[in-house]
């Protein structure tokens, strides 16, 4: 039996925090990936996986939740990703792929700058 120090306890808490943060539902930013048949066919799975992975890597797990939804209604633009943030307008990214997802995590979720090139406005 080893005696744990308080510093070790706190370090362990910080390390484990991400593990339960998801269950508090307190994410300020919600990333929603359209995962209906059309989305999946267009390649939404790797987009979803990329978001989950990059958000974790960037240490944003306590602020950002990644989830899926059904058909968003603009099938020709799939894979579609919507980002909801309290007090801000919804941002809709279209024709996404894993690389674009990584860029959005880096610039938008981490840096706070919307990646205009991938939003629906630019793709119309």
């Amino acid at each position, binding site marked *: *039996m080893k005696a744990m120090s308080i510093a070790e*306890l706190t370090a362990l*808490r910080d390390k484990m925090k991400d593990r339960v943060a998801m*269950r508090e539902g307190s994410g300020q930013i919600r990333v929603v990936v359209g*995962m209906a048949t059309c989305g999946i066919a267009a390649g939404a799975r790797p987009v979803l996986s990329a978001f*989950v992975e990059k958000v974790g890597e960037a240490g944003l797990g306590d602020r950002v939740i990644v989830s899926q*939804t059904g058909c968003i209604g603009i099938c020709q633009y799939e894979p579609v990703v919507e980002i909801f943030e309290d007090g801000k307008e919804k941002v809709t990214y279209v024709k996404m792929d894993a690389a674009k997802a990584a860029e959005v995590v880096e610039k938008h979720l981490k840096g706070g700058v919307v990646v205009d090139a991938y939003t629906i406005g630019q793709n119309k």
Partner: protein
Amino acid sequence: MIRSHVLICGGTGCTSSGSPALKTALEKELAAKGLTEEIKIVMTGCFGLCALGPVMIVYPDGTFYSMVTPEDIPEIVEEHLLKGRPVERLEYHEQAAEDHHVVNSLSETMFYKKQKRVALRNCGVINPEDINEYIATDGYQALAKALTEMTPDEVIQTVLDSGLRGRGGGGFPTGLKWKFACANRGQVKKYVACNADEGDPGAFMDRSILEGDPHAVIEAMALAAYAIGADEGYVYVRAEYPIAIHRLQIAIDQAKEMGLLGENIFGTGFNFDLKIRFGAGAFVCGEETALMTSIEGNRGEPRPRPPFPAVKGLFGQPTILNNVETYANIPQIILNGAKWFADMGTEKSKGTKVFALGGKITNTGLVEVPMGTTLREIIEEIGGGIPNGKKFKAAQTGGPSGGCIPAHLIDTPIDYDNLLAIGSMMGSGGLIVMDEDTCMVDIARFFLEFTVDESCGKCTPCRVGTRRLLEILNKIIEGKGEMEDLDRMEELCNYIKSASLCGLGQTAPNPVISTLRYFKDEYIAHIVDKTCPAGVCKSLLKFTIDADKCIGCGLCAKNCPADAIARTTYIAPGHKLASFAIDSSKCVKCGACLDSCKKIKAISKK
């Protein structure tokens, strides 16, 4: 990388309705779909909505599924976990009603909205069998804070200032109890003990806390030990709680392995060791002196107080004994401060209280509300009201030691003092809701039968007094009562209350006293009119067949187990067959005939 957590309730309620099978099915299905690396299954403690078990929650979206079967799992995995479309038909009805693009947060539903979870904060959130998850939610931080930044006296003062009162029934200020036991730290062997001998019929909050968040109790007991200068603790838990015992033991082992229990905790020189003792389920062992006698290995019988346990407790040494729910509040009080806790609740009852909702209520389960919440809020809003459109008649709080709250007092804010004032008591928090079909005399008998069975027999008022009281009640229920019996009962109740040795006897007459106080008319109906207004007491019931309604099908006679129904010679106008009649001397009042005549409704009971 994990993108979703599926929480499955592993509380006793959901375990018995099949949650372990859900886990197996889910594991299999996730493996088949190759999602094992992305989706994590977590077995948690009780979520509270036991009536809808087995329940599961999918995060991050917080979708709440109720009454799930293993057959539903492939659909949930395919539709929800893979495609992100929640399976509507399994969603909790309140959530399902909302627009699906905005998933209604669980905390916004009526059941959870008015709740404030302090003691239950981790129940249904963390995996109780993994100490890391407790640590992730600030677990053992309170102990670290106390051991390094606070003196034992400061810990006691914080608990005193918080206004926390014993949640097991008595409502004694917890800090005061600790203060009484704090003298001569380090010079005298002392103990801390935890009362997990939850025995009230219908109460299961302590079990759920031990099952859902065992480390909170362990941490609190270590804090108590530090405060009074003890180094050894016992949790007395009934052997009928196998899941709680199992998880508590895992928690103790994990805490020991990490050095959070044992010697030189956090390198501060503070030692604390914790053991579990099993109770055999005797109700009297929830009484503090009997509980300690039982831990010592003797027959669980109470002894007179004083000396109080703080002076002479376990093995003759100063001991503090608190209830599970009381302990579960302590780490939060130390971490957030006394004021944070004292800001919740009413003037003399601070914080929150967990209630086990049962009886005639839609949402049977576990709820935690701030003190001062009204019974109406608990029953109508959180509890979802009374099913089948029936009318609320009364609620029983405090189990066999408590009393009933009649309908006209439904707006009473619930706290220790208000409940005492209206003749009930907080008790451990069992809340049994009764509707118009409940006979109050029968309820009084039910609880009294329980205490008669559970009386340990050591003192005469309880052993003999409660039995005589029960005999009078039985007499009334059998239709042989007389008006003088009411005075006799009242007199006997007062004797038992004032002369019994321990809390069991002193509170045993409460259900009789309070039903006599609020429902005397029902007693009188049983005695004078020889009827049971709620239609419960069999001896006073009479089943009759309306000869003019009876179509002579004979189904009732076929179903009657006592051959008490026979065809008459009377043929009602417009009918082809002769009607039937019940021979009340043969009738056993089982009600089978009533059930068989649901269509024609020719049979009535009165």
